């Protein structure tokens, strides 16, 4: 008994080290397994509120830049408005068209963001109270950003394309070929698209858009531009490198897309399985 106590006294810290390290490994593995505890997460109140405050200070230094980007977007929207005003008449009844519009857009602000990790996440300042729900698409002015993963009352976290778990279905505009877009954890500007069969032609400069097959994003939203096409030896599908139009490091304002028909489409599709 005495020698056991002595042993513990002498090597207790090794035991403690092994326990803590095992616990850390457990946390990491559990983390990678989608089962993220929502409690200790940046969508929880304390760290969420802190980040919100820090961001409101940081914003002062970037007002000029943000103003410019908003002005540019205004101009672009105005341009589209003019285009529609030029059309003689709208071919469908406007009352009906309004009822049919199934997409709702919730603007949100990025309050926490990282690009240097292998599994990056973004925190937004909109939550359940504002109508945000899990599995909603998130886009920025220039292109797709990611999908809502967790929601709390006032905050939500996004699984952006800069995450090894992110999979977005993309379509090559020129020939309509569908592939899966993911990230290899290297550069925050470069994505990898796979699954395009080699008999289709893909060239540098082709645009990749959202397919519209999933309920997350509207059809035709930009994902990236092809910069490099390679065909691994013995493979039947291309490995394509895309440059994203969205600069994740400078991401400030995003739009959450709420699709009213999402539930219905998912339920219908689940019948097939």
């Amino acid at each position, binding site marked *: 008994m005495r020698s056991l106590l002595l042993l513990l006294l002498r090597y207790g810290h090794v035991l403690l080290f092994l326990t803590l390290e095992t616990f850390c490994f*457990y946390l990491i593995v559990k983390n990678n397994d989608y089962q993220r505890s929502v409690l200790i997460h940046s969508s929880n109140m304390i760290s969420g509120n802190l980040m919100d405050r820090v961001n409101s200070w940081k914003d002062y230094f970037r007002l000029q830049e943000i103003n410019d980007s908003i002005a540019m977007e205004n101009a672009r929207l105005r341009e589209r408005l003019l285009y529609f005003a030029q059309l003689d008449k709208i071919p469908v009844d406007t009352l009906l068209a309004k009822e049919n519009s199934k997409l709702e857009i919730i603007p949100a602000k990025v309050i926490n963001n990282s690009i240097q990790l292998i599994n990056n996440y973004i925190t937004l300042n909109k939550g359940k109270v504002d109508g945000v729900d899990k599995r909603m698409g998130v886009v920025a002015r220039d292109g797709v950003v990611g999908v809502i993963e967790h929601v709390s009352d006032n905050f939500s976290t996004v699984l952006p394309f800069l995450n090894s778990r992110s999979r977005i279905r993309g379509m090559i505009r020129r020939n309509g070929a569908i592939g899966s877009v993911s990230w290899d954890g290297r*550069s925050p500007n470069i994505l990898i698209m796979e699954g395009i069969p080699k008999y289709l032609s893909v060239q540098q400069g082709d645009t990749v858009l959202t397919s519209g097959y999933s309920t997350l994003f509207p059809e035709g939203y930009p994902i990236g531009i092809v910069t490099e096409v390679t065909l691994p030896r013995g493979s039947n599908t291309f490995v394509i490198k895309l440059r994203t139009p969205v600069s994740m490091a400078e991401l400030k304002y995003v739009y959450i897309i709420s699709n009213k028909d999402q539930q219905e489409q998912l339920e219908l599709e689940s019948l097939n399985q």
Partner: protein
Amino acid sequence: MDQVIILIRFVIAVLIQVLVCKQIVLFTDDFIHGTVMFYPIFIMLLPLRYSKSVILLLSFLVGISVDIFYDSLGVHAGASVVTAFVRPLILKILEPDSGYSIKAIPSKHYFRIIWFMQYAALLLGTHLLVYFSLEAFSFVFWKEIILKTIVTFGLSYIILVIHQMLINSR
């Protein structure tokens, strides 16, 4: 009094890490090259008289606090615990002829700056290597792990040493 200083140091280290250092990222088109790690200074500056277990627990706490803000539960904590475990070994290697004073903390105030630079280099190197290995979670990426460690080490080390020259930690 001592505990208060440790607590303040803890809070400042975490805040500087998540509010300032998290924003610093060096990258090129091919590869993300690195960032800055400041909070290991907290583990480095824990007093010498603390028992190994207390140092392990405090390091775990600082790691997990940083993790909460990085959304990477367990990665920083795992690296911090290894760093805390290695700390006594490194202290042993660097032990001066006269031995350690029981009141000292491993800082410039009690030792020479050259001593601190060696000490910080060994601890920071261990910390970063373990951190990037845990982050990748597979040694398949050993090239990336080493590259990230080297670049992050360079930048963080300069900041840690400058910090130690400016601020006299007792």
